[in-house]
């Protein structure tokens, strides 16, 4: 990923770091990797979304680790230099500047770490089916529930997650959510 950072012009890299810090500060819901990549590509740079996403992850991890360890700007730059010797000078300058301005305000609590890996439930679609027959069993006759969860991941991307449950599994699933509601009410 470090060598791909070389490809990104300074102003785009600055924008990237700004978005990352703002996301870590919970000011925005995520880094708009796809959109940023489009604009970088339009300016003539050959970089794909996958590579950009990796860079976002690396920088995000760098900033959140630095926040957790309460690093000063100089400490961060030193650590960076030790870890990644091939980082272009302009990238280091951007990181130094962004961290100086906004690094201290990143919260270090457990919540901050959770928010980085927890998605948001958006919606659920479902269907109830009965598998009648299969190549190994002519008389299956088993009912099952298929559920598609619409989920917003930490970067704001909405994806679908689909899975199947047998009737007993569904009943347990339902029961767990009822318990959750009860606990949420009493907290």
């Amino acid at each position, binding site marked *: 990923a470090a060598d791909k950072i070389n490809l990104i012009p300074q102003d785009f890299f600055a924008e990237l770091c700004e978005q990352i810090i703002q996301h870590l500060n*919970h000011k925005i819901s995520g880094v708009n990797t796809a959109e940023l990549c489009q604009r970088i590509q339009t300016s003539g740079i050959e970089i794909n979304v996958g590579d950009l996403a990796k860079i976002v992850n690396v920088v995000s991890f760098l900033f959140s680790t630095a926040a957790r360890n309460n690093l000063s700007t100089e400490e961060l730059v030193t650590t960076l230099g030790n870890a990644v010797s091939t980082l272009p000078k302009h990238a280091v300058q951007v990181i130094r500047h962004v961290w100086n301005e906004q690094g201290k305000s990143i919260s270090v609590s457990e919540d901050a770490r959770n928010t980085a890996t927890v998605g948001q439930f958006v919606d659920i679609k479902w269907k109830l089916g009965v598998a009648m027959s299969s190549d190994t069993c002519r008389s299956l006759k088993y009912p099952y529930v*298929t559920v598609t969860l619409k989920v917003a991941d930490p970067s704001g991307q909405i994806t679908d997650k689909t899975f199947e449950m047998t009737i007993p599994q569904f009943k347990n699933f339902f029961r767990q959510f009822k318990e*959750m509601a009860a606990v949420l009410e009493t907290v």
Partner: protein
Amino acid sequence: EGCKPLAALLSGIAQAVYHGNADITEELLRGQLYPEATPEEFRALRAKMGGLLQSIASADMDLNQLEAFLTAQTKKQGGITSDQAAVIAKFWKNHRIKIHESLINQSRWDNVLKNMNWRVDLKSQSRHIDQINTPVAIVEMELGKNGQESEFLCLEFDEAKVSQMLKKLSEIEESMTSL
């Protein structure tokens, strides 16, 4: 041809075919259960019993169907004795549910919900001031296809989202009454 070896043979066949036990080989079964039989004789016996078990399992026969089926088999040329029929009937009664479950699992090829855990956290920070000190449920779902690596999906639900979920789950439950 006593009853015990046949019961054990059916068990061995079920283990191999329905429960995926690759260690149960034909040689193992013959050596343990029918050591006096020649390999050819044993192969024929195993094939016959395996075929009967497959018919019974595929149709997920209830007791009536089973009785009719086995009776017909005793009347056939080269069929089974009534002693053998009794052993097969007893075996099916005891193992029907497990074998049927195994057949169901064999046909679940999509993601299944393997496990689910949850806890309730008190959110101490948020980008919206009004969310400070609100409880949220963090739910971890283990998803994956049978026999493959799991994906862990971790989701946050506030009270409103849990209500939304409960509403939809109620709809599902209601539709189940038509089953």
